[in-house]
């Protein structure tokens, strides 16, 4: 396959809010900026293109800004390797791209955490944000019965969205304790914008039971999920459904940063006050350096965009706002910490690694991620441990080990491509 080459001053990986804000601010000084995303369209998770509904004002403002700027966007390309310093390589369905850059901004966002329980591998058991993404892309959901479960504010956003699209939300099951939510609620009082959002959501979700201290213990069905059993305290009961949308809060996507040698702290990419990582000239913004929501992603993106183009004074002007949203994020993440009881959900037969179908019983005798990989092939499949890695970290306390290229599975030809001429990024 022919390799298409680009050259740019600033390369941004990820076109969610953080990447969009970073790219826009970096381009203000006249730098050539190229943004690459695995998704075909700009917007990341929260501003994912919606086939039925127009995006909100904030999203439209930022996406218009990018469209009308000199920033070049390439969609449908996953960045998987750094063949040499200053070059990143990406693969699409029918192309390979290499991009030479002066500075790199990683804005790779977060993914949902999935926890194994009997039946979690059935078709139509999806992530909560996962089901939302499918519906935004055009999946008809009208009249479908849906159980939303897991943890985090995303459950409420997803339930609200699906209800608006005509789904019948049976129940929202949140694993955390009511007490922790009340504490979070008190924090909201200091954040008028968030309080308003929470109030609007509550109105939208009127009539739908929101149970705390509650989680799915199993899902069942013949070819796809038909019913889910929920537990709350001593009570267990079954709810029939067409979809179980289940995700346990979010996890930063750090694989690319790890590949590039960036320091990782508590599961997030470490950054300094200008969002620069431990590797010089390499910045990280948005949820890959800590789950914190839209506002934090935007402000971090702006800081990095300015800092990477030597407009540090402008970047500084955003520090106090960033501090506010980081404080809010810390409270949020504490409120949705996982409870130990969830470790008891898998039975011996439950597959923990979905790519290689490795059951819980085979992992119980292993003592580390490395031994599990070698002995059972856990984490050796095409998702490269993105799903089972965090699950085994929670279940067994294992730390996943160093990342090697490619960070996504690619065709052999993409890894060792033939070359074509340098094509400068249009700016």
């Amino acid at each position, binding site marked *: 396959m022919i390799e298409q080459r680009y050259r740019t001053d600033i390369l941004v990986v990820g076109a969610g809010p953080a990447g969009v804000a970073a790219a826009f601010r970096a381009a203000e000084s006249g730098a050539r900026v190229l943004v690459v995303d695995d*998704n075909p369209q700009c917007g990341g998770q929260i501003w994912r293109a919606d086939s039925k509904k127009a995006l909100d004002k904030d999203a439209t403002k930022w996406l218009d800004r990018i469209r009308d700027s000199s920033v070049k966007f390439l969609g449908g390309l996953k960045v998987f390797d750094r063949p040499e310093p200053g070059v990143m390589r990406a693969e699409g369905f029918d192309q390979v791209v290499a991009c030479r850059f002066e500075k790199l901004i990683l804005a790779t966002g977060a993914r949902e955490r999935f926890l194994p329980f009997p039946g979690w591998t059935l078709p139509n058991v999806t992530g909560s944000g996962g089901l939302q993404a499918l519906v935004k892309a*055009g999946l008809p959901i009208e009249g479908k019965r849906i159980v939303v479960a897991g943890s985090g504010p995303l459950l409420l956003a997803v339930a609200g969205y699906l209800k608006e699209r005509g789904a019948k939300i049976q129940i929202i099951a949140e694993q955390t304790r009511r007490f922790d939510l009340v504490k979070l609620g008190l924090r909201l009082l200091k954040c008028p914008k968030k309080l308003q959002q929470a109030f609007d959501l509550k109105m939208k979700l009127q009539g739908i039971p929101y149970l705390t201290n509650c989680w799915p213990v199993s899902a069942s069905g013949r070819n796809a999920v038909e019913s889910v059993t929920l537990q709350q305290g001593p009570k267990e009961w079954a709810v029939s459904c067409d979809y179980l949308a289940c995700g346990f809060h979010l996890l930063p996507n750090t694989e690319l940063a790890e590949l590039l040698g960036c320091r990782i702290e508590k599961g997030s990419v470490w950054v300094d006050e200008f969002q620069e990582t431990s590797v010089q000239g390499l910045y990280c913004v948005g949820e890959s350096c800590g789950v914190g929501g839209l506002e934090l992603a935007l402000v971090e993106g702006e800081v990095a965009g300015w800092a990477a183009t030597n407009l540090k004074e402008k970047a500084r002007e955003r520090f106090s706002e960033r501090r506010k949203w980081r404080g809010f994020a810390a409270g949020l993440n504490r409120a949705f910490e996982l409870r130990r009881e969830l470790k008891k959900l898998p039975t011996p037969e439950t597959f923990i690694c979905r790519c290689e179908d490795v059951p819980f019983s085979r992992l119980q005798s292993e003592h580390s991620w490395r031994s599990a990989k070698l002995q059972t092939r856990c984490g050796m499949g095409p998702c490269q441990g993105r799903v089972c890695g965090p699950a085994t970290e929670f279940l067994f306390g294992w730390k996943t080990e160093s990342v090697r290229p490619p960070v996504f599975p690619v065709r052999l030809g993409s890894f060792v491509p033939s070359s074509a001429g340098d094509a400068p990024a249009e700016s």
Partner: protein
Amino acid sequence: MPEFVTIWINGSAVRVPAGTPVSIAVLMAGHSEFRRSVSGEPRGPLCGMGICMECRVQIDNQAHCRSCQILCQEGMTVRTHD
């Protein structure tokens, strides 16, 4: 851009709005099973965002394509496990 495109899923024509990911076309055509796992279980999309690899299908004779990240193109041929 045309408003609709037609793709072929397991030999049947499916018409979807242009810009629809292959995963959605497969679900709209009534398949919840995208692939069989190594031990033979039916599997379908989990993450919806390109990381879990559960939505893999064959597209234009290329195996293991993540259908949630690839948009339907006129005339594309898709094979799920069937």
